[in-house]
């Protein structure tokens, strides 16, 4: 009997130590793999920064260095003066800010209609709205261009900003999902008190919708800041260019000036990286929410 107990205990002890070692080994492997993946994914960003700090000689050096041996900051002021950087920046900010305001306001209003008011056919229409997301942009691109050129809006940011004030299926979906989580009792109580939908919207639902507002605002800011095809099609005069087309223009004209290009690209990218660091949670929640569609 006693021999059996000892051998059983011994076996159990060995297996727990084995498990711990395997556990540590497994964790290490995961960390190493994640580290490698993270390096691969962020390398281009660091390369952009490092190239922007290099001297011209070192940029073209073979074999290339990852960390610059001599750091110079002169590419940055040079980039700002060589291209109309601040002009482009102002245009980009104007585009992003006005489009974002439009996106937030219009989608909040529309989503309220799809979530807090009960009306016949509501869910079927909502499903239809969501299905319009699958329409390829290519189909509407050309007639929209023709329409805007007839309105004399081509050459300005209007074709890019104004449509944002008319709702967007993706944001409607996002905000509606959010609004459905707000307790209905508040609305009902207000309705019994005789409030109309307008008051309920402005006094009750709106103040509670801050997370939805932040999410839509951040996504629209990001999307408009990075947008290339839109400005490419609609902007003519280089003084109206946004950063995306402005930097690309510089590339087509001064292809080999990598120091300046990387400096301009870095300045173009950094605001978005900073935005992400401050608003990580919102971005991540906004994206994961769309995946739980089913």
């Amino acid at each position: 009997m006693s021999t059996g107990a000892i051998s059983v205990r011994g076996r159990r002890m060995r297996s727990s130590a084995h498990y711990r070692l395997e556990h540590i080994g497994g964790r290490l492997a995961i960390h190493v793999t994640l580290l490698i993946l993270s390096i691969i994914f962020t390398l281009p960003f660091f390369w952009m920064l490092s190239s922007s700090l290099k001297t011209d000689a070192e940029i073209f050096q073979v074999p290339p260095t990852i960390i610059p041996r001599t750091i110079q900051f002169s590419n940055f002021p040079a980039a700002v003066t060589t291209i109309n950087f601040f002009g482009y920046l102002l245009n980009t900010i104007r585009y992003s800010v006005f489009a974002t305001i439009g996106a937030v306001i219009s989608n909040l209003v529309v989503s309220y209609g799809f979530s807090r008011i009960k009306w016949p056919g509501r869910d079927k229409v909502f499903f239809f709205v969501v299905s319009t997301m699958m329409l390829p942009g290519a189909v509407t691109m050309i007639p929209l261009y023709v329409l805007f050129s007839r309105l004399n809006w081509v050459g300005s940011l209007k074709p890019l900003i104004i449509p944002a004030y008319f709702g967007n299926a993706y944001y409607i979906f996002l905000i509606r999902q959010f609004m459905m989580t707000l307790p209905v009792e508040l609305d009902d109580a207000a309705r019994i008190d005789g409030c109309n939908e307008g008051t309920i919207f402005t006094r009750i639902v709106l103040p509670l919708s801050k997370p939805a507002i932040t999410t839509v605002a951040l996504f629209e800011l990001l999307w408009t800041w990075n947008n290339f095809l839109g400005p490419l099609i609609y902007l003519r005069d280089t003084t109206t260019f946004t950063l995306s087309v402005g930097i690309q223009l510089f590339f087509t004209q001064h292809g080999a000036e990598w120091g300046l290009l990387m400096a301009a690209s870095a300045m173009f990218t950094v605001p978005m990286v900073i935005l992400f660091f401050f608003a990580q949670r919102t971005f991540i929640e906004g994206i994961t929410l769309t995946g739980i569609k089913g």
Partner: protein
Amino acid sequence: MARMGLTVQQRRSLRWALLFISPWIVGFLAFTVYPVVTSFIFSFTNFNAIRFNPDFIGFRNYVQLFTRDRLFIKSLTNTLSYAGMLIVGATILDIFAAFLLNFKVRGLSLYRTALFLPVMTPAVASSLTWVWILNPKRGLINGLLARIGVEGPYWVASPRTALLSIAMVAIWGSGRAILIYLAGLKDVPQHLYEAAEIDGAGAAAKMWHITLPLLTPQMLFNLVTLLIHSLQAFTEVFIMTNGGPNNSTLLYGLHLYNRAFKDMQMGMASAMAWILFIIIFVLTVVLFRLSKNLVVYDR
């Protein structure tokens, strides 16, 4: 009494609802319905943005695309290969990355930020950086390869590897999907894994029988999204290669853009847009049909 249609209350709600939804309705009519109908009509004309009285030419645009326009066929095959590479590569990488992130390791948010960083980077900035990184002589990758004695390929400078390089850059930017898979993984109930372990299942068996099947809704969503985006890909190729070398990276979206805004052949470009629409529609329907048998929703 019920046959009176809507009650007063319902009618009032409907009126309010329509008021709230009106911005979307106006936008839908002006920016979706009108363009869709118009582009359909354009596709049967020789509209070239200069003549304001285009003539009806029937299906000539469509026929010419398939029979006369060599670049059209090339752009189609390029785009299909590109989409194939992107979808397969991105799905494998993204599920794998989400799987790793799902282990509660320390520094999780740092890893997550790193993997998501490409999504935040403007396409212009990242495309230009990649052009430089993939430079055959002075770029980072071939430089690193040279250090271990390997001669790197010509990446976007060679017709054979250019499309693959573009697909690689696109896979690098697929961080959104990782987050969606991660959310899906978190939803898998622990007790399923425990039950499997008791039955003696190894890691691979658990992955195949539990994790992947329960991840199929996210896979469907990401596949459809990837499909729609990859078939219309434009910015990366426009900036990095402009379709070259030798039209090896001429993607459908780029060809459409060239036809519409460089050649001003908007009738033909509209036809291209509709062909693309049909392709996307058919592939999406196929995906959804397949998903009925493969996707698991309720456990």
